[in-house]
């Protein structure tokens, strides 16, 4: 390491070595940004899923006249150790028109929107983003922000909702008018586009009093993992003699989407680490060239008392200097990219957004810099630089001093 100064001098004075560092920086910046975006996507997905659906959702597989069942469910679940809240909800399918009530009078209209009516108990509801406190009046409704904009309705407007009640041969359409009390925004595009929050008792009445709830949302204490809470809920239901309930964590609810994003993160990481590896190969070529060009210097170092191990060590240090400079620059570039992603997005898209909410779920590209991922990235890059320095270092170490000195 006492030759670090010489390595730094080489690095500063040789454009080829600086270019190698730039190659590494580009790779590191791409991996850094990709990981930050995917991590941001995952954490935002977790936040919005958990905000809306809690940590665990319990769904009776059979729905119907379950009035007595609801009390049993609540009694069993409220005894679960570590439970913070258990909130019953009644979810049902509905249909609304773009211009509110009038659209439903004209079934030829293409302006109809399907939505999920979420019946909540305002006093029990814990999802702050839903603003259930606005449902003070019976017959009131809160729309997802995106849906409200699409329908062109605002607080105070009346909104007619079409649905059905019963099942099988008893299936019958129903329609009711709700008063829009406001809108909510969870931050996830799909949730904000296809959901409306109403009072559970209003929805139960709307459906003829036959379905009092379809799910119970559980939120655990901070130190309880959702999987742990789900296991305890299953056990509590079993002990209470309740069979046939589907108990799912938020992660299982996210299901395929979460798995797909995780999968994409893995794939992208491999692809971009391959880019870093390509940069490291380029470093190998550059350093091998440097060994040839600096043969005279290697001879001088040998004559001054540097043994083969010191000469090899010098080239490895040089490689680490290039790798460290490239990594530092890459991290800085990655951070800049993360902070200015919207600018870059518009620049790449020629003024048009590439990551639209319809495609990307979120109105803004979420960014989350995970120190663990960054550590792995830095470690892997430096390790790759060190690994790829081995061949040039070996070539330099085996140069005969006298012959190298003659290479002036």
């Amino acid at each position, binding site marked *: 390491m*006492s030759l670090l100064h*010489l390595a730094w001098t080489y690095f500063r004075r040789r454009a080829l070595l600086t270019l190698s560092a730039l190659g590494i920086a580009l790779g590191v910046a791409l991996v850094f940004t990709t990981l930050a975006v995917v991590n941001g996507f995952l954490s935002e997905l977790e936040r919005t899923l958990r905000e809306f659906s809690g940590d665990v959702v319990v769904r009776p597989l059979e729905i119907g006249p379950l009035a007595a069942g609801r009390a049993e469910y609540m009694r069993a679940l409220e005894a679960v150790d570590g439970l913070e809240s258990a909130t019953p909800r009644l979810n049902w399918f509905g249909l609304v028109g773009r211009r509110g009530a009038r659209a439903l009078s004209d079934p030829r209209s293409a302006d109809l929107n399907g939505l999920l009516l979420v019946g909540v108990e305002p006093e029990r509801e814990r999802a702050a983003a839903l603003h259930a406190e606005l449902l003070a009046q019976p017959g009131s409704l809160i729309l997802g922000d995106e849906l409200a904009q699409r329908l062109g309705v605002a607080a105070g407007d009346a909104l007619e909702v079409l649905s059905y009640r019963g099942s099988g041969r008893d299936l019958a359409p129903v329609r009711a008018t709700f008063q829009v009390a406001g809108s909510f925004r969870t931050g996830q595009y799909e949730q904000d586009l296809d959901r409306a929050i109403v009072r559970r008792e209003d929805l139960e009445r709307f459906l003829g009093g036959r379905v009092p709830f379809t799910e119970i949302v559980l939120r655990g204490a901070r130190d309880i993992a959702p999987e742990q809470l789900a296991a305890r809920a299953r056990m509590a239901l079993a002990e209470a003699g309740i069979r046939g309930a589907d108990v799912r964590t938020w992660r299982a609810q996210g299901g395929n989407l979460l798995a797909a994003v995780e999968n994409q993160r893995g794939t992208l990481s491999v692809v971009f680490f391959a880019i870093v590896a390509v940069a490291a190969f380029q470093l190998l070529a550059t350093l091998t060239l440097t060994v040839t060009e600096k043969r005279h210097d290697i*001879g*001088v170092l040998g004559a001054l*008392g540097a*043994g083969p191990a010191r000469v090899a060590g010098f080239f490895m240090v040089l490689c680490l200097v290039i790798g460290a400079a490239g990594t530092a620059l890459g991290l800085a570039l990655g951070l800049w990219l993360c902070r200015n992603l919207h600018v870059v997005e518009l620049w790449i898209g020629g003024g048009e957004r590439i990551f639209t909410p319809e495609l990307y779920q979120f109105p803004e590209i979420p960014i989350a810099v995970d120190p663990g991922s960054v550590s792995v990235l830095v470690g892997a890059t430096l390790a790759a630089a060190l690994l790829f320095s081995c061949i040039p270092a070996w070539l330099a170490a085996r140069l005969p001093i006298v012959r190298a000195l003659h290479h*002036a």
Partner: protein
Amino acid sequence: MSEPLILEARDLHKSYRMGAGRLPVLRGVSLQLRPGEVVALMGASGSGKSTLLHLLGLLDRPDQGRVLLDGADVTELGQSAAARLRAGAIGFVFQQFHLLADLNALQNVLMPRRIACGWSWWRRAGRERERARAILEAVGLAGRLRHRPAQLSGGEQQRVAIARALVSAPALLLADEPTGNLDSATGADILALLLRLARQRQAALLLATHDAHVAAHSDRVLQLVDGTIVGAAPGP
């Protein structure tokens, strides 16, 4: 009891591959050097002076014969052990100066110390810098510390090389045609400087040259002809 030897070569042979055969360069060279002694090694170009210096400086290995440094046989030393000896006990001055082009004069002089100190460099850097500055002042380059070799004249470059050779206070100095690339006036200055500093520091100096004027300043003269020492004479 005779004075101990700092360097002894016994029956050194060295040849190089030349096509299918081998070209003998040294054919049984023996010599002795005492501490503080200045010996001129004279011979025409191609007589094997540089090869002999390389063997004595452990930059290369003889085909046959022994090299003893301060009484210890160093002929078969491994590359790392030989490198350690070079770093501490041997100083080189070359005809081509062999400075590192990317470093300034001070950093060039510090290089042997960086190599010799290894990890302890970081503790000793301050002291070592002072030492290097002092020796650069001694060779008359106090105002040229931050100049790179390309910004120095030939004479100044050789002064840096002499400072570099002396910075580790070696017991043995090997100088290969140190004035060969300089004009006669500068060469005379450099030679005087080298001899003065070697004697001040009690370092044995083996000076390869084909210049009789250079040899005139030494304690002894060895004549190398066709790979063998044909005569030894006391200096003037």
